[in-house]
Protein backbone atom coordinates (compact mmCIF):
# COMPACT_ATOMS: atom_id res chain seq x y z
CA UNK A 1 0.00 0.00 0.00
CA UNK A 2 1.00 3.56 -0.49
CA UNK A 3 2.98 5.16 2.31
CA UNK A 4 1.33 8.45 1.46
CA UNK A 5 -1.66 9.71 3.27
CA UNK A 6 -3.66 11.76 0.87
CA UNK A 7 -5.10 15.09 1.70
CA UNK A 8 -8.52 16.17 0.65
CA UNK A 9 -9.41 12.60 -0.08
CA UNK A 10 -12.83 11.46 1.08
CA UNK A 11 -12.77 10.27 4.71
CA UNK A 12 -12.10 6.58 4.87
CA UNK A 13 -14.94 4.83 6.62
CA UNK A 14 -13.34 1.42 6.50
CA UNK A 15 -10.55 1.17 9.01
CA UNK A 16 -7.15 0.57 7.60
CA UNK A 17 -5.70 -2.52 9.26
CA UNK A 18 -2.21 -1.05 9.02
CA UNK A 19 -3.15 2.35 10.41
CA UNK A 20 -1.97 3.46 13.81
CA UNK A 21 -4.13 6.56 13.53
CA UNK A 22 -6.88 7.71 11.23
CA UNK A 23 -8.18 11.27 11.16
CA UNK A 24 -11.68 11.65 9.79
CA UNK A 25 -12.72 15.19 8.94
CA UNK A 26 -11.06 16.22 12.20
CA UNK A 27 -11.58 19.76 13.46
CA UNK A 28 -9.97 20.84 16.73
CA UNK A 29 -10.04 24.12 18.55
CA UNK A 30 -10.76 26.26 21.54
CA UNK A 31 -14.06 28.07 21.93
CA UNK A 32 -15.56 28.80 18.51
CA UNK A 33 -12.23 28.92 16.73
CA UNK A 34 -10.76 26.02 14.90
CA UNK A 35 -7.03 25.45 15.35
CA UNK A 36 -6.96 22.42 13.07
CA UNK A 37 -9.38 22.32 10.19
CA UNK A 38 -11.01 19.30 8.54
CA UNK A 39 -8.03 17.01 8.65
CA UNK A 40 -8.29 13.68 6.85
CA UNK A 41 -5.67 11.01 6.56
CA UNK A 42 -3.92 8.01 7.95
CA UNK A 43 -0.74 7.51 9.92
CA UNK A 44 0.50 4.01 9.13
CA UNK A 45 1.90 1.78 11.85
CA UNK A 46 5.61 2.24 12.26
CA UNK A 47 5.62 5.68 10.60
CA UNK A 48 8.19 8.26 11.64
CA UNK A 49 6.44 11.52 10.98
CA UNK A 50 7.25 15.16 11.65
CA UNK A 51 4.55 17.76 12.11
CA UNK A 52 5.76 21.11 10.82
CA UNK A 53 4.20 24.55 10.65
CA UNK A 54 4.36 28.10 11.97
CA UNK A 55 3.43 28.98 15.55
CA UNK A 56 -0.31 28.75 15.94
CA UNK A 57 -0.70 26.36 13.03
CA UNK A 58 -2.28 23.70 15.25
CA UNK A 59 0.63 21.30 15.72
CA UNK A 60 0.49 21.03 19.49
CA UNK A 61 -3.29 21.01 19.40
CA UNK A 62 -3.22 18.03 17.08
CA UNK A 63 -0.86 16.12 19.37
CA UNK A 64 -2.96 16.92 22.42
CA UNK A 65 -6.06 15.60 20.66
CA UNK A 66 -4.29 12.41 19.63
CA UNK A 67 -3.19 11.97 23.24
CA UNK A 68 -6.82 12.25 24.29
CA UNK A 69 -6.36 15.53 26.16
CA UNK A 70 -8.65 17.53 23.88
CA UNK A 71 -12.00 16.52 22.51
CA UNK A 72 -12.53 17.15 18.76
CA UNK A 73 -14.98 19.90 17.82
CA UNK A 74 -16.08 17.65 15.01
CA UNK A 75 -14.88 14.61 13.14
CA UNK A 76 -12.88 11.93 14.91
CA UNK A 77 -9.54 10.31 15.57
CA UNK A 78 -9.52 6.55 15.28
CA UNK A 79 -6.68 4.88 17.11
CA UNK A 80 -5.70 1.29 16.42
CA UNK A 81 -7.21 -0.93 19.12
CA UNK A 82 -5.08 -1.56 22.24
CA UNK A 83 -2.58 1.04 21.11
CA UNK A 84 -0.26 2.02 23.94
CA UNK A 85 0.51 5.71 23.77
CA UNK A 86 3.25 7.90 25.19
CA UNK A 87 2.87 11.67 25.10
CA UNK A 88 5.72 14.06 25.79
CA UNK A 89 4.44 17.63 26.12
CA UNK A 90 6.56 20.75 25.76
CA UNK A 91 8.97 21.12 28.64
CA UNK A 92 7.23 24.21 30.00
CA UNK A 93 4.34 22.05 31.22
CA UNK A 94 6.47 20.53 33.96
CA UNK A 95 6.70 22.11 37.40
CA UNK A 96 10.46 22.11 37.77
CA UNK A 97 10.32 23.56 41.26
CA UNK A 98 8.50 20.45 42.49
CA UNK A 99 10.69 18.60 45.00
CA UNK A 100 11.27 15.43 43.01
CA UNK A 101 14.30 13.41 41.99
CA UNK A 102 15.06 12.27 38.47
CA UNK A 103 14.04 8.81 39.65
CA UNK A 104 10.58 10.05 40.64
CA UNK A 105 10.06 11.78 37.31
CA UNK A 106 11.24 8.85 35.21
CA UNK A 107 9.35 6.24 37.23
CA UNK A 108 6.09 7.96 36.26
CA UNK A 109 6.58 6.14 32.97
CA UNK A 110 5.57 2.95 34.76
CA UNK A 111 2.19 4.43 35.72
CA UNK A 112 0.25 2.48 33.06
CA UNK A 113 1.77 -0.71 34.49
CA UNK A 114 1.63 -0.02 38.20
CA UNK A 115 -1.20 2.50 38.57
CA UNK A 116 -2.09 4.37 41.73
CA UNK A 117 -1.44 1.69 44.33
CA UNK A 118 1.06 -0.72 42.77
CA UNK A 119 4.49 -0.51 44.34
CA UNK A 120 7.64 -0.46 42.24
CA UNK A 121 9.28 -3.87 42.08
CA UNK A 122 12.91 -4.79 41.92
CA UNK A 123 12.59 -5.40 38.17
CA UNK A 124 11.05 -1.93 37.76
CA UNK A 125 14.05 -0.34 39.43
CA UNK A 126 16.31 -2.21 37.06
CA UNK A 127 14.21 -0.99 34.11
CA UNK A 128 14.48 2.59 35.33
CA UNK A 129 18.26 2.28 35.66
CA UNK A 130 18.44 0.83 32.13
CA UNK A 131 16.33 3.66 30.72
CA UNK A 132 18.46 6.31 32.44
CA UNK A 133 21.56 4.67 31.09
CA UNK A 134 20.09 4.60 27.57
CA UNK A 135 19.63 8.38 27.60
CA UNK A 136 23.09 9.01 29.05
CA UNK A 137 21.96 9.87 32.57
CA UNK A 138 23.85 7.21 34.51
CA UNK A 139 24.18 8.28 38.11
CA UNK A 140 21.52 11.00 37.87
CA UNK A 141 18.82 8.98 39.60
CA UNK A 142 18.99 10.83 42.92
CA UNK A 143 19.47 14.33 41.47
CA UNK A 144 16.77 16.91 42.15
CA UNK A 145 14.99 17.88 38.94
CA UNK A 146 15.47 21.59 39.64
CA UNK A 147 19.22 21.05 39.36
CA UNK A 148 19.04 19.67 35.79
CA UNK A 149 19.89 21.60 32.66
CA UNK A 150 17.29 21.79 29.90
CA UNK A 151 19.06 19.08 27.95
CA UNK A 152 19.37 16.79 30.96
CA UNK A 153 15.68 17.23 31.75
CA UNK A 154 14.79 16.34 28.18
CA UNK A 155 16.97 13.23 28.41
CA UNK A 156 15.12 12.24 31.60
CA UNK A 157 11.78 12.76 29.87
CA UNK A 158 12.91 10.54 26.99
CA UNK A 159 13.84 7.90 29.57
CA UNK A 160 10.27 8.13 30.82
CA UNK A 161 8.98 7.60 27.28
CA UNK A 162 11.26 4.56 27.02
CA UNK A 163 9.70 3.09 30.15
CA UNK A 164 6.20 3.61 28.78
CA UNK A 165 7.07 1.06 26.10
CA UNK A 166 4.45 2.60 23.80
CA UNK A 167 3.32 1.72 20.28
CA UNK A 168 2.60 5.34 19.45
CA UNK A 169 4.98 8.03 20.67
CA UNK A 170 4.00 11.71 20.50
CA UNK A 171 6.74 14.30 21.00
CA UNK A 172 5.87 18.00 21.16
CA UNK A 173 8.87 20.15 20.18
CA UNK A 174 11.33 17.73 21.77
CA UNK A 175 14.40 19.71 20.69
CA UNK A 176 13.47 23.24 21.72
CA UNK A 177 16.43 24.96 23.35
CA UNK A 178 18.39 21.71 23.47
CA UNK A 179 22.12 21.58 22.72
CA UNK A 180 23.42 19.82 19.60
CA UNK A 181 24.96 16.85 21.42
CA UNK A 182 21.72 16.09 23.23
CA UNK A 183 19.75 16.45 20.00
CA UNK A 184 22.05 13.90 18.34
CA UNK A 185 21.64 11.41 21.18
CA UNK A 186 17.88 11.79 21.33
CA UNK A 187 17.50 11.56 17.54
CA UNK A 188 19.37 8.27 17.75
CA UNK A 189 16.82 7.14 20.30
CA UNK A 190 13.95 8.16 18.01
CA UNK A 191 15.56 6.17 15.21
CA UNK A 192 15.83 3.20 17.51
CA UNK A 193 12.09 3.45 18.21
CA UNK A 194 11.49 3.65 14.46
CA UNK A 195 13.58 0.50 14.02
CA UNK A 196 11.40 -1.22 16.64
CA UNK A 197 8.40 -0.36 14.44
CA UNK A 198 6.87 2.00 16.93
CA UNK A 199 4.93 4.88 15.42
CA UNK A 200 6.56 8.24 16.22
CA UNK A 201 5.00 11.65 15.59
CA UNK A 202 7.07 14.71 16.53
CA UNK A 203 6.31 18.41 16.29
CA UNK A 204 9.46 19.94 14.81
CA UNK A 205 10.85 23.34 13.89
CA UNK A 206 14.27 22.49 12.50
CA UNK A 207 13.53 21.69 8.84
CA UNK A 208 17.06 20.47 8.13
CA UNK A 209 16.73 17.95 10.93
CA UNK A 210 13.31 16.91 9.62
CA UNK A 211 14.68 16.30 6.13
CA UNK A 212 17.52 14.27 7.60
CA UNK A 213 15.52 12.18 10.04
CA UNK A 214 11.83 11.95 9.26
CA UNK A 215 10.65 10.04 6.17
CA UNK A 216 7.13 11.50 6.51
CA UNK A 217 5.97 15.04 7.19
CA UNK A 218 2.67 16.73 7.79
CA UNK A 219 2.84 20.44 6.98
CA UNK A 220 0.12 22.24 8.94
CA UNK A 221 -1.34 25.70 8.65
CA UNK A 222 -4.52 24.90 10.55
CA UNK A 223 -5.37 22.71 7.60
CA UNK A 224 -2.99 20.20 6.05
CA UNK A 225 -0.99 22.09 3.41
CA UNK A 226 0.84 18.93 2.44
CA UNK A 227 1.23 15.49 3.92
CA UNK A 228 3.46 12.73 2.69
CA UNK A 229 7.07 12.09 1.82
CA UNK A 230 9.21 14.74 3.49
CA UNK A 231 11.14 15.91 0.42
CA UNK A 232 7.94 16.47 -1.52
CA UNK A 233 6.07 17.90 1.42
CA UNK A 234 8.68 20.51 2.28
CA UNK A 235 8.95 21.92 -1.23
CA UNK A 236 9.47 25.66 -1.55
CA UNK A 237 5.99 26.03 -2.96
CA UNK A 238 4.33 24.24 -0.04
CA UNK A 239 6.37 26.15 2.53
CA UNK A 240 5.29 29.42 0.96
CA UNK A 241 1.67 28.32 1.08
CA UNK A 242 2.03 27.45 4.72
CA UNK A 243 3.59 30.80 5.52
CA UNK A 244 0.69 32.76 4.07
CA UNK A 245 -1.88 32.02 6.70
CA UNK A 246 -3.19 34.38 9.32
CA UNK A 247 -1.95 33.36 12.73
CA UNK A 248 -4.39 35.25 14.92
CA UNK A 249 -7.88 34.00 15.58
CA UNK A 250 -10.26 36.26 13.72
CA UNK A 251 -13.44 37.00 15.64
CA UNK A 252 -15.17 38.19 12.49
CA UNK A 253 -14.20 35.15 10.48
CA UNK A 254 -17.19 33.60 8.73
CA UNK A 255 -18.53 30.33 10.11
CA UNK A 256 -17.00 27.40 8.35
CA UNK A 257 -19.59 25.86 6.05
CA UNK A 258 -17.82 22.78 4.80
CA UNK A 259 -19.46 20.72 7.52
CA UNK A 260 -22.86 20.98 5.92
CA UNK A 261 -21.49 21.03 2.39
Amino acid sequence: MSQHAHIHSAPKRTKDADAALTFENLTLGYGDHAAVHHLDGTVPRGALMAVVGANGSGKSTLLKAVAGLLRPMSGRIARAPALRLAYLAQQAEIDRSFPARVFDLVSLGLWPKRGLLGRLRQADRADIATALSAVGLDGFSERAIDSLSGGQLQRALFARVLLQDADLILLDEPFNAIDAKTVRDLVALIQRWHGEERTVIAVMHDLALVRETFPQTLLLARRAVAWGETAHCLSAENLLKARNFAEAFDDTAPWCRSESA
Partner: protein
Amino acid sequence: MYEFLIAPFVDYVFLQRALAGSIMLCLSSGPVGVFLMLRRMSLTGDALAHGILPGAAVAFLFFGLDLAPMTLGGLIAGLLLALLAGAVSRLTLQKEDASLAAFYLISLSAGVLIVSMHGSNIDLMHILFGTVLALNDQALMLIAGIFVLSTVGLALFWRGLVAECLDPLFFRSVSRLGTPIHFAFLFLVVLNLVGGFQALGTLLSVGLMMLPAASARFWVNRVGPMCALAVAFGMVSSVAGLLLSYHAALPTGPAIILFCGAIYALSILGAPRGILLTHLRRTRPHRAA
Protein backbone atom coordinates in the same frame (compact mmCIF):
# COMPACT_ATOMS: atom_id res chain seq x y z
CA MET B 1 12.61 23.99 84.00
CA TYR B 2 10.29 21.11 84.87
CA GLU B 3 7.95 23.60 86.52
CA PHE B 4 7.83 25.68 83.39
CA LEU B 5 7.74 23.07 80.61
CA ILE B 6 6.29 19.84 81.97
CA ALA B 7 4.26 20.55 85.09
CA PRO B 8 1.35 22.33 83.40
CA PHE B 9 0.70 19.30 81.20
CA VAL B 10 0.93 16.93 84.16
CA ASP B 11 -1.26 18.97 86.44
CA TYR B 12 -4.13 20.02 84.20
CA VAL B 13 -6.35 17.68 82.24
CA PHE B 14 -7.59 20.47 79.98
CA LEU B 15 -4.01 21.12 78.86
CA GLN B 16 -3.47 17.41 78.22
CA ARG B 17 -6.55 17.37 76.04
CA ALA B 18 -5.47 20.50 74.22
CA LEU B 19 -2.06 18.95 73.62
CA ALA B 20 -3.51 15.66 72.35
CA GLY B 21 -5.93 17.49 70.08
CA SER B 22 -3.40 19.83 68.57
CA ILE B 23 -0.81 17.11 68.03
CA MET B 24 -3.32 15.00 66.13
CA LEU B 25 -4.23 18.05 64.10
CA CYS B 26 -0.57 18.65 63.22
CA LEU B 27 -0.15 15.02 62.17
CA SER B 28 -3.12 15.15 59.89
CA SER B 29 -3.07 18.66 58.44
CA GLY B 30 0.72 19.13 58.06
CA PRO B 31 1.06 16.76 55.07
CA VAL B 32 -2.18 18.10 53.55
CA GLY B 33 -0.69 21.58 53.80
CA VAL B 34 2.48 20.43 52.03
CA PHE B 35 0.47 19.17 49.08
CA LEU B 36 -1.67 22.31 49.01
CA MET B 37 1.50 24.37 48.81
CA LEU B 38 3.12 22.16 46.16
CA ARG B 39 -0.06 22.35 44.08
CA ARG B 40 0.14 26.16 44.38
CA MET B 41 -3.15 26.17 46.19
CA SER B 42 -2.02 27.76 49.46
CA LEU B 43 -4.73 30.40 49.27
CA THR B 44 -7.34 27.76 48.48
CA GLY B 45 -6.92 26.48 52.03
CA ASP B 46 -7.58 29.98 53.28
CA ALA B 47 -10.67 30.38 51.14
CA LEU B 48 -12.07 27.01 52.17
CA ALA B 49 -11.48 27.81 55.84
CA HIS B 50 -13.67 30.89 55.46
CA GLY B 51 -16.19 28.88 53.49
CA ILE B 52 -16.79 26.63 56.50
CA LEU B 53 -18.13 29.53 58.53
CA PRO B 54 -21.69 29.92 57.22
CA GLY B 55 -22.35 26.18 57.61
CA ALA B 56 -21.14 26.24 61.19
CA ALA B 57 -23.11 29.45 61.74
CA VAL B 58 -26.39 28.03 60.49
CA ALA B 59 -25.90 25.00 62.76
CA PHE B 60 -25.15 27.39 65.63
CA LEU B 61 -28.40 29.21 64.86
CA PHE B 62 -30.41 26.04 65.39
CA PHE B 63 -28.41 24.06 67.94
CA GLY B 64 -26.23 26.59 69.77
CA LEU B 65 -22.56 25.92 70.48
CA ASP B 66 -22.78 22.17 69.90
CA LEU B 67 -19.91 20.34 68.25
CA ALA B 68 -21.63 17.71 66.11
CA PRO B 69 -24.08 19.91 64.17
CA MET B 70 -21.53 22.69 63.75
CA THR B 71 -18.94 20.25 62.41
CA LEU B 72 -21.42 18.75 60.00
CA GLY B 73 -22.61 22.19 58.91
CA GLY B 74 -19.05 23.34 58.34
CA LEU B 75 -18.22 20.20 56.39
CA ILE B 76 -21.22 20.65 54.10
CA ALA B 77 -20.51 24.35 53.52
CA GLY B 78 -16.81 23.73 52.83
CA LEU B 79 -17.48 20.94 50.34
CA LEU B 80 -20.17 22.99 48.64
CA LEU B 81 -17.71 25.86 48.24
CA ALA B 82 -15.02 23.58 46.81
CA LEU B 83 -17.46 22.03 44.33
CA LEU B 84 -18.96 25.37 43.31
CA ALA B 85 -15.57 26.95 42.71
CA GLY B 86 -14.41 23.89 40.79
CA ALA B 87 -17.57 23.90 38.68
CA VAL B 88 -17.34 27.61 37.90
CA SER B 89 -13.72 27.24 36.77
CA ARG B 90 -14.56 24.27 34.56
CA LEU B 91 -17.74 25.69 33.05
CA THR B 92 -16.72 29.32 32.60
CA LEU B 93 -13.60 31.25 31.70
CA GLN B 94 -12.97 32.27 35.31
CA LYS B 95 -10.04 30.58 36.99
CA GLU B 96 -10.57 28.59 40.16
CA ASP B 97 -8.73 31.05 42.41
CA ALA B 98 -10.95 33.96 41.40
CA SER B 99 -14.18 32.03 41.91
CA LEU B 100 -12.91 30.72 45.26
CA ALA B 101 -12.15 34.26 46.38
CA ALA B 102 -15.60 35.41 45.33
CA PHE B 103 -17.38 32.57 47.10
CA TYR B 104 -15.38 32.78 50.30
CA LEU B 105 -15.98 36.51 50.65
CA ILE B 106 -19.70 35.85 50.30
CA SER B 107 -19.48 32.93 52.76
CA LEU B 108 -17.54 34.87 55.36
CA SER B 109 -19.96 37.80 55.33
CA ALA B 110 -22.97 35.51 55.47
CA GLY B 111 -21.42 33.53 58.32
CA VAL B 112 -20.60 36.53 60.46
CA LEU B 113 -24.06 37.98 59.85
CA ILE B 114 -25.81 34.76 60.83
CA VAL B 115 -23.82 34.33 64.04
CA SER B 116 -24.34 37.91 65.14
CA MET B 117 -28.07 37.66 64.49
CA HIS B 118 -28.47 35.15 67.29
CA GLY B 119 -25.32 35.11 69.33
CA SER B 120 -23.05 37.41 71.24
CA ASN B 121 -19.65 38.66 70.20
CA ILE B 122 -18.16 36.03 72.48
CA ASP B 123 -19.85 33.29 70.45
CA LEU B 124 -18.48 34.83 67.29
CA MET B 125 -15.00 34.88 68.82
CA HIS B 126 -15.40 31.20 69.75
CA ILE B 127 -16.25 30.26 66.21
CA LEU B 128 -13.60 32.41 64.58
CA PHE B 129 -10.76 31.70 66.99
CA GLY B 130 -11.61 28.39 68.61
CA THR B 131 -11.50 26.99 72.09
CA VAL B 132 -8.56 24.63 72.24
CA LEU B 133 -8.61 24.70 76.04
CA ALA B 134 -12.17 23.34 76.13
CA LEU B 135 -11.86 20.22 73.96
CA ASN B 136 -14.29 17.59 75.26
CA ASP B 137 -14.24 13.84 74.54
CA GLN B 138 -16.53 14.31 71.59
CA ALA B 139 -14.21 16.87 70.01
CA LEU B 140 -11.12 14.72 70.61
CA MET B 141 -12.82 11.71 69.04
CA LEU B 142 -13.73 13.81 66.02
CA ILE B 143 -10.17 15.05 65.59
CA ALA B 144 -8.85 11.49 65.97
CA GLY B 145 -11.29 10.23 63.36
CA ILE B 146 -10.30 12.95 60.93
CA PHE B 147 -6.63 12.23 61.57
CA VAL B 148 -7.10 8.56 60.65
CA LEU B 149 -9.26 9.28 57.60
CA SER B 150 -6.93 11.99 56.31
CA THR B 151 -3.77 9.94 56.76
CA VAL B 152 -5.21 6.87 55.06
CA GLY B 153 -6.63 9.00 52.24
CA LEU B 154 -3.36 10.78 51.65
CA ALA B 155 -1.41 7.51 51.64
CA LEU B 156 -3.80 6.09 49.03
CA PHE B 157 -3.63 9.14 46.75
CA TRP B 158 0.03 9.98 47.38
CA ARG B 159 1.45 8.89 44.04
CA GLY B 160 -1.42 10.35 42.11
CA LEU B 161 -1.04 13.69 43.86
CA VAL B 162 2.69 13.74 43.21
CA ALA B 163 2.20 12.80 39.55
CA GLU B 164 -0.46 15.44 39.05
CA CYS B 165 1.59 18.23 40.67
CA LEU B 166 4.78 17.33 38.86
CA ASP B 167 3.50 16.89 35.32
CA PRO B 168 -0.27 17.36 35.01
CA LEU B 169 -0.44 16.92 31.22
CA PHE B 170 1.50 13.68 31.37
CA PHE B 171 -0.72 12.42 34.15
CA ARG B 172 -3.82 13.21 32.14
CA SER B 173 -2.36 11.30 29.20
CA VAL B 174 -1.90 8.10 31.22
CA SER B 175 -4.73 8.25 33.73
CA ARG B 176 -8.27 9.48 34.19
CA LEU B 177 -7.80 9.79 37.93
CA GLY B 178 -6.75 13.46 37.85
CA THR B 179 -10.15 15.00 38.51
CA PRO B 180 -11.32 12.41 41.08
CA ILE B 181 -8.02 12.80 42.94
CA HIS B 182 -8.33 16.58 42.86
CA PHE B 183 -11.75 16.48 44.48
CA ALA B 184 -10.79 13.76 46.96
CA PHE B 185 -7.89 15.96 47.97
CA LEU B 186 -10.14 19.01 48.39
CA PHE B 187 -12.37 16.82 50.56
CA LEU B 188 -9.38 16.03 52.78
CA VAL B 189 -8.53 19.73 52.99
CA VAL B 190 -12.06 20.62 54.12
CA LEU B 191 -12.07 17.69 56.55
CA ASN B 192 -8.87 18.89 58.20
CA LEU B 193 -10.07 22.47 58.36
CA VAL B 194 -13.28 21.32 60.03
CA GLY B 195 -11.20 19.28 62.46
CA GLY B 196 -9.05 22.29 63.26
CA PHE B 197 -12.02 24.58 63.54
CA GLN B 198 -13.07 23.33 66.99
CA ALA B 199 -9.60 23.81 68.41
CA LEU B 200 -8.33 26.86 66.56
CA GLY B 201 -11.42 28.32 64.94
CA THR B 202 -12.04 28.82 61.28
CA LEU B 203 -9.51 31.60 60.87
CA LEU B 204 -6.55 29.88 62.46
CA SER B 205 -7.02 26.23 61.48
CA VAL B 206 -5.60 27.05 58.08
CA GLY B 207 -2.54 28.52 59.82
CA LEU B 208 -1.60 25.18 61.36
CA MET B 209 -1.96 23.68 57.90
CA MET B 210 -0.05 26.17 55.76
CA LEU B 211 2.63 27.80 57.93
CA PRO B 212 4.51 24.60 58.90
CA ALA B 213 4.33 23.43 55.27
CA ALA B 214 5.63 26.72 53.94
CA SER B 215 8.46 26.63 56.52
CA ALA B 216 9.43 23.05 55.70
CA ARG B 217 9.87 23.98 52.01
CA PHE B 218 12.95 25.99 52.95
CA TRP B 219 14.70 23.06 54.60
CA VAL B 220 14.27 19.94 52.49
CA ASN B 221 13.77 18.97 48.88
CA ARG B 222 11.78 15.76 49.07
CA VAL B 223 8.05 15.45 49.58
CA GLY B 224 8.18 12.81 52.35
CA PRO B 225 10.70 14.58 54.58
CA MET B 226 8.88 17.86 53.92
CA CYS B 227 5.67 16.39 55.34
CA ALA B 228 7.51 15.02 58.37
CA LEU B 229 9.16 18.36 59.02
CA ALA B 230 5.85 20.22 58.67
CA VAL B 231 4.33 17.91 61.27
CA ALA B 232 7.29 18.48 63.58
CA PHE B 233 7.10 22.27 63.19
CA GLY B 234 3.39 22.18 63.95
CA MET B 235 3.94 20.09 67.09
CA VAL B 236 6.68 22.33 68.43
CA SER B 237 4.47 25.37 67.84
CA SER B 238 1.53 23.69 69.55
CA VAL B 239 3.51 22.87 72.69
CA ALA B 240 5.12 26.31 72.77
CA GLY B 241 1.82 28.07 72.10
CA LEU B 242 0.02 26.16 74.83
CA LEU B 243 2.78 26.94 77.34
CA LEU B 244 2.87 30.61 76.41
CA SER B 245 -0.87 30.99 76.66
CA TYR B 246 -0.88 29.15 80.01
CA HIS B 247 1.93 31.14 81.61
CA ALA B 248 1.04 34.53 80.17
CA ALA B 249 -2.73 34.09 80.11
CA LEU B 250 -2.95 34.77 76.38
CA PRO B 251 -5.43 33.31 73.86
CA THR B 252 -4.17 29.87 72.81
CA GLY B 253 -5.06 29.64 69.13
CA PRO B 254 -3.25 32.81 68.10
CA ALA B 255 -0.30 31.90 70.37
CA ILE B 256 0.14 28.57 68.52
CA ILE B 257 -0.11 30.19 65.11
CA LEU B 258 2.32 32.93 66.06
CA PHE B 259 4.90 30.30 66.97
CA CYS B 260 4.28 28.74 63.55
CA GLY B 261 4.89 32.21 62.14
CA ALA B 262 8.12 32.57 64.10
CA ILE B 263 9.39 29.26 62.71
CA TYR B 264 8.43 30.46 59.24
CA ALA B 265 10.37 33.70 59.69
CA LEU B 266 13.42 31.81 60.95
CA SER B 267 13.18 29.42 58.00
CA ILE B 268 13.03 32.23 55.48
CA LEU B 269 16.19 33.66 56.95
CA GLY B 270 18.34 30.80 58.11
CA ALA B 271 17.28 27.59 56.32
CA PRO B 272 19.46 25.98 53.62
CA ARG B 273 17.09 27.40 50.98
CA GLY B 274 16.49 30.64 52.88
CA ILE B 275 17.71 34.14 52.13
CA LEU B 276 20.98 34.16 54.06
CA LEU B 277 22.42 31.01 52.57
CA THR B 278 21.24 31.42 48.99
CA HIS B 279 21.70 35.15 48.44
CA LEU B 280 24.06 36.73 50.91
CA ARG B 281 26.99 34.35 50.79
CA ARG B 282 29.28 35.81 48.19
CA THR B 283 30.94 32.62 47.07
CA ARG B 284 29.23 29.34 47.46
CA PRO B 285 31.01 26.02 47.70
CA HIS B 286 30.34 24.06 44.57
CA ARG B 287 31.18 20.67 43.17
CA ALA B 288 33.53 20.26 40.27
CA ALA B 289 30.85 18.48 38.24
